[in-house]
């Protein structure tokens, strides 16, 4: 293979100025030749990448980091799917060949699943605690700013993007645990509310019913006395 020809085509490819015919030739050279100058290709790729060093360094706006974080936050579901797929791909898969092996494998998988569930619960609890801690910190910052009412929406939006960099893989496994704990908390609050407000109202209702009964009885007695009195007067 003509090394010089390869290197000449490499220069054009690396610069992005190669035409279709030359690209095809270069691809053939890459596919065919064991002695393709890969080292030279790497050197030219590195050379082209250091050209921007000659430019005067410019800095992007500081707000861009937040904007980028927001963009990344918006693709969290996509990333979650990737992470899940990765986890599934990493799980051990055994080929079942006989009935006894099948049984053994089922038992083994049950054990593994149990362990995984236990581990996952521990991780979830830990991560949820961290998230809760993070929320508290954010709340304190917001209080410190004394802009609660005016900037609550703005703050929520900002904290979402900031929390992307602060809390990796936020959406991964925390939601179900958080929801379960939320449910418990809501039930507790409801019970407390019933206890403190409704029960008190029931007692006062019962008292007023009793008072009404007494009043009715007194009115009835007065009415009876009046009837009897009018009878004697006649």
């Amino acid at each position, binding site marked *: 293979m003509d090394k010089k020809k390869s290197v000449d085509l490499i*220069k054009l490819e690396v*610069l992005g100025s190669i035409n279709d015919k030359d690209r095809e030739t270069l691809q053939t050279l890459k596919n065919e030749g064991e002695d393709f100058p890969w080292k030279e290709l*790497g050197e030219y790729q590195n050379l082209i990448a*250091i050209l*921007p060093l*000659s430019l005067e360094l410019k800095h992007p706006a500081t707000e861009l980091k937040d904007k980028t974080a927001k963009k990344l936050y918006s693709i969290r579901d996509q990333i979650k799917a990737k992470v899940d797929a990765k986890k599934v791909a990493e799980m051990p898969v055994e080929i079942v060949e006989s009935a006894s092996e099948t049984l053994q494998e089922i038992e083994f998988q049950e054990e593994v699943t149990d362990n995984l569930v236990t581990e996952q619960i521990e991780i979830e609890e830990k991560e949820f605690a961290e998230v809760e801690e993070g929320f508290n910190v954010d709340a304190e910052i917001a209080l410190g700013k004394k802009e609660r009412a005016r900037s609550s929406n703005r703050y929520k939006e900002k904290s979402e993007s900031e929390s992307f*960099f602060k809390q990796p893989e936020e959406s991964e496994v925390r939601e179900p645990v958080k929801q379960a704990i939320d449910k418990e908390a809501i039930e507790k609050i409801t019970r407390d509310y019933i206890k403190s407000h409704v029960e008190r109202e029931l007692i006062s209702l019962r008292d007023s019913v009793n008072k009404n009964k007494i009043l009715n009885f007194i009115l009835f007695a007065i009415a009876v006395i009046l009837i009897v009195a009018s009878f004697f007067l006649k």
Partner: protein
Amino acid sequence: MSDLNSLTDAEIMLKVAGYDSKALEQLYDRYAPILYTLIKKIVTDKETSEEILSDVFVIVWRQIDHFDFKTNNVYTWLVTLARNKAIDAVNRRSEKILPEYNDDYEKEYMLPKLSPEIETFQLSDVMNKKEKVEKALKSLTDAQKYVLELSYYGGMDQSEIAGKLNIPAGTVKSKLQVAFGKLMQKVSEA
């Protein structure tokens, strides 16, 4: 963040591959200025440049699986990715007809395909080469420098440069090859 500061670019990339968002933030802090400088040179307007820079980091996050952890050349991978993305944006803004931008297109045309035998580069090492690069560029003739700029920052192919300069495409091709070869020779000199 202080722990991440002491890590090499390759170690940071490894953490990014584990979807560690703090590692990505560290990568952003290190690389945003150089990538933005390059993108701004290609695209020229500030707003679009920032948009592209932001997109580059989204691509890194999404396509981290395609980074070659054997060669571990973070610097060249990121700079090439930023350049590809910026050139693509310029082409889409012009009248060029391009395929729809989707995941397949991104993998094929945006993600760098670096040589398996490439030397590992990281930002801190590369910054020391600034003076050498400037000297090497000064050694080129004005015409060589111009075609190189039209190609690298303008994203023009041979026929486009030939049309712009009103010279044969063959001449452009040889000028680019000679200029790039000379640049390599000068940079390689001790």
